[in-house]
């Protein structure tokens, strides 16, 4: 599948920058409405690891992942990404850090009426001066990075189409290309396959796995399906009501471990392939 060969490796194109570790130390997040979504969570993720974050709905998975790029500020504790302490960053420095951290969302978060090209160009923001974006002239290099990112997820032929005209799986691939065009050091994915049918879910998970293996990127992926966590990740972190209750190799996680994380017996809907 040549269209699927990673652009970074083919043809001397820019490859991902070195991958970074992520460390949370005693992180507590209290939302303005008083909900405590994370309670004293400490965990260190080594560069190049692919880690699943599992837990029931409301257990704090999205909150945890959002503290890593500062979309959610921590109330107590520190989050360190590479050698940056996220909570100390403001303005330009925070934007610069976010430029090193790609993110994929459950709902894809594409601008449906904009072209695929412009949606992926979003990934170049942190590397582009605002004036250049404003006059609408992407630099040749930005263009090249965007095209290679789209090629690496097999979506290059749709580059001039509208994002809204794509299927769910295609949208998520474009969203992955958007994150890849950042040339990130860390990749975050918040329930990336929860809106997709099983075959598409598997192919998107394979894309993430490939990004991890071929580019050596640190990947954190929120999942609520235990079989996906076991199959595609090497390490699993379990959250229950905002607390870290499990941390171990994903392949070894037994049904009993999942029951302990979920705090209830395993149900058919906890698996993708029933």
């Amino acid at each position, binding site marked *: 599948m040549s269209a699927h060969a990673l652009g970074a490796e083919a043809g001397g194109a820019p490859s991902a920058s070195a991958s970074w570790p992520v460390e949370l130390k005693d992180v507590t997040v209290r939302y303005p409405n008083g909900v405590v979504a994370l309670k004293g969570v400490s965990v260190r993720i080594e560069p190049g690891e692919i880690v699943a974050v599992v837990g029931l709905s409301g257990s704090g998975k999205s909150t945890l992942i959002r503290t890593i790029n500062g*979309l959610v500020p921590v109330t107590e504790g520190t989050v360190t990404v590479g050698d940056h302490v996220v909570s100390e960053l403001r303005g330009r420095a925070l934007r610069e850090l976010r430029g090193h951290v*790609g993110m994929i969302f459950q709902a894809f978060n594409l601008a449906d*009426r904009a072209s695929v090209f412009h949606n992926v160009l979003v990934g170049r*923001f*942190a590397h582009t001066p605002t004036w250049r*974006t404003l006059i609408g002239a992407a630099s040749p290099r930005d263009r090249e990075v965007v095209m290679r990112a789209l090629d690496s997820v097999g979506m290059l032929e749709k580059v001039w189409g509208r994002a809204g005209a794509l299927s769910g799986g295609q949208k998520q691939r474009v969203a992955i290309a958007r994150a890849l065009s*950042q040339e990130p050091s860390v990749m975050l994915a918040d329930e990336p396959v929860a809106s997709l049918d099983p075959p598409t879910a598997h192919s998107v998970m394979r894309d993430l796995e490939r990004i991890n293996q071929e580019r050596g990127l640190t990947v954190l992926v929120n999942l609520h399906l235990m079989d996906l966590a076991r199959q595609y990740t090497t390490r699993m972190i379990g959250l229950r009501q905002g607390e870290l209750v499990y941390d171990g190799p994903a392949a070894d996680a037994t049904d009993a471990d999942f029951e302990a994380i979920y705090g209830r017996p395993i149900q058919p809907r906890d698996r993708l392939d029933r």
Partner: protein
Amino acid sequence: MTATRLDVPARPRTWPRTVAIAGAIIVITLLTTLPALGGVEIDLGAIARNWGNGADRIAKLMRPDLSILPRTWQPLLETLEMALVAAAISAAFAIPLSLWAARPTNPNAPFRVAVRSVLNIIRAVPDLVYATILVAMVGVGALPGVITLVLFDLGIVVKLVSEAIDSADAAYIEAGRAAGGTQTQINRVTALPQTWPVFASQVLYSLELNVRVSAILGLVGAGGMGRLIDEVRGFYRYDALATIILELLVVVIAIEITSNVLRKRLR
């Protein structure tokens, strides 16, 4: 399969609310027309008494005098030019203003409130007031008319477009923020194309309104058809007035049809 009875939750009762709202409307209407409270006086008798005065004017209006037509081309052209130029100028200003007036595209609250307040003030002043003041300031002609229309259009377009942005799903903006973009970058590359159809549709709408409004603005000397209307009315030439009104009607309908067609294509 046994047909078990479904445990459907009781539907909430809404009729008491409906009755209360209808009652409130009736009471307020009655109160505002009570003369004792200084209410609006609705004297149906006056319509009957004055009917005779109006009748011969209406009779004249029914027999349009087409001989005025050649004299209408120039002012009509001016009206159309004013409408088009004003719509174009206001559109150029409305793009950044709409984005600054909506929450998803401008999270800076003081800035956003300032933009909105200025636009609320612009919208609150009636167009004839702008026209009258501007005619006094820059003189009789198309220029005060164009400036008036620009202000009028800005008020409408920015309000409608920014409200559309406020109510639309803005998840893509979060993605732009997560990628480290500045708000300006996010707005330029994603919010702008996302908002474009609404924007173009409102600008077309403002063009329609401009033709109607500019016909009135001429009454205070702000150029276009209005000046001619004022003149023929002054000479009680209701038959000529009828021709002008018919002409405007045709133009307005033509523009409306065109813009409806264009708007459908925008979707």
